[in-house]
């Protein structure tokens, strides 16, 4: 039997908008994934520590404070520093298109903006997982 995809849903930054993070967490759980939710106001360091400790396949970052250009690339950078380079990092929140493009080059594979169906997020993750190195782990 295939193992379940493990996802960390995390809230970097100082904002308290957790509606999106929680909806996505519930939807991914209902799509058959194992979901860990960090709670609010996490630093990149806290998120990376949780990702390593929980040995997740995917890190989903939800941010609506406007600090995404600083905090999201920092999460990827810290993961790399820990030698983690096979984890999918995606994001969501109030993030303009132009910023999303820049974030892609910083290693955030995809930004799911407002209005994006949760089914799209789930199938993106499943597709990635099937072909990833982690699938056999």
């Amino acid at each position: 039997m295939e193992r379940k995809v493990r996802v960390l849903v995390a809230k970097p930054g100082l904002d308290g908008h957790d509606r999106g993070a929680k909806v996505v967490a519930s939807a991914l759980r209902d799509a058959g994934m194992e979901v860990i939710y960090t709670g609010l106001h996490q630093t990149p360091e806290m998120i990376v520590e949780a990702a390593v400790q929980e040995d997740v396949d995917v890190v989903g970052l939800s941010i609506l404070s406007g600090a995404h250009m600083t905090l999201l690339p920092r999460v990827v950078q810290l993961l790399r520093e820990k030698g983690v380079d096979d984890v999918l990092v995606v994001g969501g929140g109030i993030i303009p298109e132009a910023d999303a493009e820049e974030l892609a080059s910083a290693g955030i594979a995809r930004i799911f903006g407002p209005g994006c169906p949760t089914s799209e997020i789930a199938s993106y993750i499943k597709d990635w997982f099937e072909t990833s190195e982690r699938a056999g782990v």
Partner: protein
Amino acid sequence: MSDCEKIREAGAKWRERLRPSATERDALFETISGEPVRDLYTPCDVEGLDYERDLGFPGQFPFTRGIRNNMYRGRLWTMRQFSGFGTAMDTNKRYHFLLDRGQTGLSVAFHMPTIMGYDSDHPRSLGEVGRCGVAIDSLEDMEVLFDRIPLDRVSTSMTINAPASILLAFYICVAEKQGVSSDKISGTIQNDILKEYIAQKTWIFPPEPSMRIITDIMGFCVDHVPRWNTISISGYHIREAGSTAAQELAFTLADGFAYVEAGIKAGLDVDRFAPRLSFFFNAHLDFFEETAKYRAARRIWAREMKEKYKAKKPESWLLRFHTQTAGCSLTAQQPENNIVRTAYEALSAVLGGTQSLHTNSMDETLALPSEKAAQIALRTQQIIACESGVANTIDPLAGSYFVEALTERLEKEAYDYFDKIESMGGVVKAIDRGFFQKEIADAAYEYQKKIEQKKAIVVGVNEYVIEDEEIEIPILKIDPEVERIQVGRVRALREKRDNGLVKTRLEALKKAAAGPDNLMPLILEAARAYATLGEIIQVLKEVFGEYKERPIF
């Protein structure tokens, strides 16, 4: 045979004749909160309604029809656009722009570090400075924010909670410098910590010391800032977090009663502080349900304040409220459509008798508002006020069988929730158990599922979609220089002020925090010495500790 029996009989006949031809669209006939809506409402749906007892006249108990005798025929609602970004210099410029365009009150949006009690040069502020609101670290920034704005004539609302006492202190100091004494200023601090634990989630201290700071503020303002609204009890964020209309109504009023109880317990006279409590509701898309919500809120508050809390002054019975249109109803797709959504939402608030109103800008799912978008949002209110004709008469939806039935239904649902909350031991205990948080998260997920199953239609998102749409509206960019400038400002301030004085006043505050005295005078003294927000919060954290939430989804 009573009138209602006759109507029922005639209605049954109408339905018989209707049946063969009347097929209905394949749609969910329910409010956005998931409440079923029937095809027709008649006098039988409001059979128990007693005009004088349940509605009365505007300005008279139970205030269902409005809190003023003449409502908008006397004075229009205050047009108060929530605004703030970048440095105090940037936002001061925007305030002058909005006032020039006919806005009648100010509303400050602070950036996340201010809201969470960090100075701009704190490591946790990295990347956040000026992004989500204006960066205010000290009295010095506040002086710039209100430069050339006469605080004896303009009222200001500040969306600030855990550090509300400090921002109020900064504001009082700015007024003093303008030669305006604290009894002449008017405005609002949100200062509603309970809804932070419930929904908005920007807390600092645990509930008990937080409630103590709030009663300190209430006590201080009664004597020194009598025209200040000391709490804006907020349903807005509860709704934005995904609640239904009934939950927004019930949880907000329950918070309100908790503050009243805290004030009474702290030894304050209910008739001295209750008139300065105000409310803040969301205006979501479901037009009639929203108007009914405001009407129900007024009726419940008046009744409970009079009968349960024994307030004697009619001012204590009044539920005065600000409204903001629903940010969560806006779409990133075809953002121009948001102008239309906002207009309907604003109209429901006006028909519900709001005292002040913020209309969202079309671009808010993408970034903070551009000047153009902010102007259209303000113009939307001005068109409702001056062109639509709705401000000519008071509470024009009263007597609608549907609206009155909705008002009664929402009222009943609110009382059901009050019973539930009480059985859990009150609001704070219910927060500890994660009750509100779970109710809201469940409602949010239910609604999301309806959208994904296309049971709820969102134009431009799951229907009438434009593939590969290009966004054609301007997007406000915050200059990355803002952070560097602001960090420089707060560091320079620490160099030039009297640091000995700052230290003495912070120590005095810390000592008082451990005892029973009112903290406001000490916070004011610290503010006058240019202690920063982060420094004041830090000494309070050392005494009060910090709140931690158990994350659930």
